[in-house]
């Protein structure tokens, strides 16, 4: 077995250890030094496999307190276990795993309180993070507090022959008019925002939109302004 194959095998066993009990036979290929009980090679290997679970579990528990309280420790642990088996991390930091966990909860429990709680919790975290897009020169452009939504080509967009892009025209607080191209998702977000009475209500309405986009658009249009948008149909 080559250096590369041994690493592959080490990781494979570490991940498998999350769902089954390893045996001495499993570890043979790794060529680990055998030591005397109680710290046998198997128990030594478990330090790594347990740490993998505990590190991610601790981080997710900190980020999803509402979901944790709702489910209880046993069920939350089971959920994290199945999550790390199905979705091994490819992220650089533990904090990023939370975004993936939130998406997984929404897929597993669609339209449920758990999904809503997860979305709210990840939104809260992401709202604290500054976005690269926030730092763009357009930040000043978007800094107006409130908008009046004047025109949109959304209806034309749906009649594909007439329009291939969605534009909106809106007036800011100073009544200055701006136009902007938006994606279909962002348009859906804006339309949902019109009908929402609160941010909670909005989260419920836009379950198909990712938490990251939701966070970005909420910031972009500002929470206060969302409730002030008035669409004037084309």
């Amino acid at each position, binding site marked *: 077995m080559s250096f*590369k194959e041994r690493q592959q095998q080490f990781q494979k066993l570490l991940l498998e250890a999350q769902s089954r009990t390893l045996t001495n036979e499993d570890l043979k290929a*790794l060529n680990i030094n055998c030591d005397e009980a109680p710290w046998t090679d198997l128990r030594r290997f478990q330090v790594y496999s347990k740490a993998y679970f505990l590190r991610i579990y601790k981080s997710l528990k900190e980020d999803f307190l509402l979901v944790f309280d709702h489910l209880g420790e046993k069920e939350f642990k089971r959920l994290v276990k199945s999550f790390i088996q199905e979705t091994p991390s490819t992220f650089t930091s533990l904090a990023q795993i939370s975004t993936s966990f939130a998406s997984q909860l929404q897929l597993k429990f669609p339209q449920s309180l758990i999904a809503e709680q997860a979305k709210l919790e990840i939104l809260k975290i992401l709202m604290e993070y500054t976005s690269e897009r926030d730092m763009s020169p357009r930040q000043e452009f978007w800094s107006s507090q409130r908008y009046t939504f004047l025109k949109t080509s959304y209806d034309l967009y749906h009649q594909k022959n007439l329009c291939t892009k969605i534009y909106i025209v809106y007036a800011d607080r100073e009544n200055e008019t701006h136009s902007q191209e938006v994606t279909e998702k962002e348009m859906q977000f804006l339309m949902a925002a019109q009908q929402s009475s609160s941010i909670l209500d909005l989260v419920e309405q836009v379950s198909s939109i990712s938490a990251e986009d939701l966070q970005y658009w909420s910031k972009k249009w500002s929470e206060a302004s969302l409730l002030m948008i008035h669409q004037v149909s084309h």
Partner: protein
Amino acid sequence: MLGPFKGIFKDHGVGVGVRRPYFEALLDPKLRSPVQWGEVISENYLRWESGHRSPQLQKLIQVRKEIPIALHGVSLSLGSTDPINKNYLNRLSELKEMIHPLWISDHLCWTGHGGHNIHDLLPVEMTQEAAEHIIGRIQYVQDYFGERILVENVSSYVSFKHSQMKEWEFLNYIAQKADCGLLLDINNIYVSAINHSQDPYEFIESIDAHRVGQIHLAGHTDKGGFLIDTHDATICDPVWALYKKFHAINPYVSTMIERDDKHPPWHELQNELKMIQEIKSKSHPLKKVSKDTPLEF
């Protein structure tokens, strides 16, 4: 044994792992004493692929205005057989441009295979093949940044039958061939030595002391004679003794406490930091060093 001499990295004195509970203390010059520099976990401040940045970055920039900062990574995965993650290097480079760190460091370990991240410092087999592989990767990273990096020894719980070198031999060989620096974690030396029934003093006396640019001191958890590197406890007496031993060999090394969990109140951590200051001042009266004597070369 080597006598006291100056290493390739400047001695910045007493440092601390900059963690969220300590931001305010580090921003206050009176409270901060005796801290002269700090170290952060790079990954906590890197831009995410989605563009998001840590809300703590602005705090770090404030701290950076007060004291020099070293960037310490956990994802370079120098021992991995995966290709070097260039996206990670690019993002680290962005952070480097913001912070202007003292240096960049990471661990002699691997953290995942096939694009996965296990979020742990996994043990490398100490073979010639692995050493050559790691040397090439360190050289690549150093070429990328245009400067030496520091490579840290990790705590380990398993060792491999086919390893051909002792850990200190492996580290010395790699550091010399890659021309990098070493970050010596004295707690990790102790933890691994106990777990593998080895002599930690042999490690301390044999490591290439002039390549050591930084020292970590930390605590661990004793699980009935087997030690787990938790970095969540006070530094134990054997680790202090090992530090004093290394200090007698090379006193000119920036030394810090790395506390990753169960953060004590600042004044308690300060007491441990003062012990480093005391050790450093006893055998290494920095104030008496002539201004003509450069601390680096």
